[in-house]
């Protein structure tokens, strides 16, 4: 394991195990040893009492008949008990009568007098126990036995307990190692793998890696699962972020290009507007100059002709300015949506045209279609442009037909204005709706080149679009749609 964290976790597990088992073991050993010590001491004292009693009983005759040898023999029997270090038989007046000392014991037995009335007493000092017992025979005290014993086995027992505790502790350590190695497999290894994965993610910013899930469905597995889930989300966001950034870049480039184009168009537009206004203005100035230089007696007819020319020039200028205003309004005016009868609008326009040029032989076919929701003023401008367009480009034909109607194409209502006039080259249909792009010469058909651009903007404002089909001298059809759902109910 190269990761320091893993070692510390497994080591911690092992130490925890050792700490717990060691503490329990030590406490248990202390408890057992204390109990053992107490019971051992008690049993020793009990056996010493018995010994003292036996020795006392057996020493009665020796005491009564002053037989120190017999008493010494009796006392020496205590040597069979390994704990007894020394013993002393004392007469009633406190005089030593007989003594026993284990070989090697140099200290004489102290013989403190028993308190009056007590039969036996005991003293415990360290590992030494001294017991005194009065010898009673036939109801009379005849002497006292003192026995000094050493709790020799105490230290021996303590050593044994220590050895056992050490052995068990070693076993515990072994078991702890085993357990921790098992725990490393089942618990630590997934954690280590998880940590390695997390490190890799943070170092390489690679969100495609996944931590390996452990086989057991424990908390670690949940952790790994949650981590992987987090990675999935991060990866998704990362991808989305990158895509968004790229898209944004593309969009910015597109917008920049579009803005540039629009700018260029605007410059061209301004130039064209200035140029187109300049033409009639030059004409007006020239004619005003002519009028000024004209003598009073000049012919009335001549003057009238010049004035008529003047009027036409200003009329053209006014038309151009009106168209420009319409275009501007189509782009900026706020929409007032309401039900609009397109059929009525188209009829009004057609009647107006026929009244102005009654000599033209134009057949109108106007379909009755349901009302739509739209801005009436703008729709009037749009339809006016389209119908006038058709009127204008059929002017070279002796008899013409202009149709207005609607068809249903794939669930969408498509309106059309169709004529059988001059038509146009289908290849140039894209340029139809650009301002000041005229497909026909000014001498051929009069016009400003702004009308269709205005129509397109109006329809775009309504969420619709317009396109045209046409063939040279075969007529043209302008198709347009309004925003779906624009049809007014009723």
């Amino acid at each position: 394991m190269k990761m320091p964290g893993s070692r510390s976790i497994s080591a911690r597990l092992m130490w925890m195990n050792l700490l717990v088992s060691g503490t329990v073991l030590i406490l248990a050993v202390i408890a057992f040893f204390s109990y053992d010590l107490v019971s051992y001491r008690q049993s020793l004292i009990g056996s010493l009492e018995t010994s003292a009693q036996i020795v006392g009983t057996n020493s009665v005759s020796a005491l009564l008949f002053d037989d120190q040898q017999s008493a010494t023999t009796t006392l020496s029997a205590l040597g069979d008990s390994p704990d007894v270090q020394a013993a002393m038989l004392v007469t009633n007046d406190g005089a030593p009568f007989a003594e026993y000392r284990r070989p090697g014991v140099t200290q004489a037995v102290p013989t403190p007098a028993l308190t009056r009335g007590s039969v036996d007493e005991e003293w415990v000092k360290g590992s030494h126990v001294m017991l005194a017992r009065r010898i009673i025979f036939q109801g009379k005290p005849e002497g006292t036995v003192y026995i000094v014993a050493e709790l020799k086995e105490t230290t021996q027992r303590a050593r044994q307990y220590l050895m056992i505790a050490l052995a068990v502790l070693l076993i515990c350590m072994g078991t702890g190692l085993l357990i921790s190695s098992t725990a490393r497999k089942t618990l630590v290894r997934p954690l280590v793998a998880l940590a390695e994965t997390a490190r890799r993610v943070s170092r390489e910013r690679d969100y495609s890696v996944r931590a390996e899930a452990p086989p057991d469905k424990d908390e670690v597995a949940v952790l790994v699962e949650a981590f992987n889930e987090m990675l999935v989300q991060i990866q998704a966001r990362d991808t989305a972020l990158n895509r968004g950034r790229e898209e944004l870049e593309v969009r910015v480039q597109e917008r920049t290009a579009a803005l540039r184009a629009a700018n260029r168009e605007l410059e061209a537009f301004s130039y064209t507007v200035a140029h187109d206004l300049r033409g009639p203005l030059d004409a007006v100035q020239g004619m005003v100059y002519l009028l000024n230089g004209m003598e009073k007696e000049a012919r009335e007819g001549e003057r009238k002709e010049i004035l008529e020319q003047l009027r036409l020039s200003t009329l053209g200028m006014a038309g151009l300015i009106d168209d420009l205003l319409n275009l501007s309004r189509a782009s900026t005016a706020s929409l007032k949506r309401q039900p609009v009868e397109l059929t009525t609008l188209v009829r009004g326009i057609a009647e107006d045209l026929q009244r102005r040029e009654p000599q033209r032989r134009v057949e109108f076919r106007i379909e009755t279609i349901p009302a739509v929701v739209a801005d009436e003023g703008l729709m009037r401008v749009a339809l006016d442009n389209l119908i006038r367009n058709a009127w204008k480009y059929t002017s070279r034909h002796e008899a013409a037909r202009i149709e207005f109607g609607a068809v249903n194409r794939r669930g969408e209502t498509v309106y059309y204005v169709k004529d059988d006039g001059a038509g146009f080259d289908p290849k140039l249909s894209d340029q139809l709706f650009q301002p000041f792009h005229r497909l026909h010469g000014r001498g051929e058909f009069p016009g400003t080149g702004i009308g269709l651009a205005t129509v397109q903007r109006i329809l775009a404002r309504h969420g619709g679009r317009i396109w045209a089909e046409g063939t040279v001298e075969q007529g043209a059809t302008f198709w347009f749609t309004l925003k779906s759902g624009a049809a007014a109910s009723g």
Partner: protein
Amino acid sequence: MAAMLPGMESLAPAASAQRASQDQVEAAYLYNFGKFVRWPDGGHGPLQICVAGQDAFEQTVTKLTSGEQIDGRALQVRMVERPELTVGCSILFVGSPDRAHLEPWLAATAGKPVLTVGDGADFLDRGGMIQFVQVEDHVRFSVNLNAANRCGVELSSELLKVAVRVTGRPGKGGAQ
């Protein structure tokens, strides 16, 4: 005996300083014998310690045992002047001055449950049960078990343990 126990040598002067006269020791022993003896009749009434015609010793014993009891029996010490008067005695002491007259005393108690104690050199040989002997400066005693058995007097093994010499064997009902 003290020579056998080097560690005990220091005790000897103290013991000798308090040692009573031989009579007193013998009187105490006479009394103590009673504690290790069982008589066939079990014993009832005061236990009589008889001293054969010896006035001084009788007084020593009387003085020593006044107020004492053995196995709950009161003690009665009396001097007997003639062997016929030994009836009722449990212990009979026959001192050395009466050695010449030993025979009648032992004859008088023969077959009777009387513990006979004496200090004559041939007391045991003549049929006595316990004989005081002088060992160095200690008063000790020897036991003739056969004599005791003949009279049905049981001597405790504790007593035999401290005897200098035991002749004969314990009887079938030997006291423990």
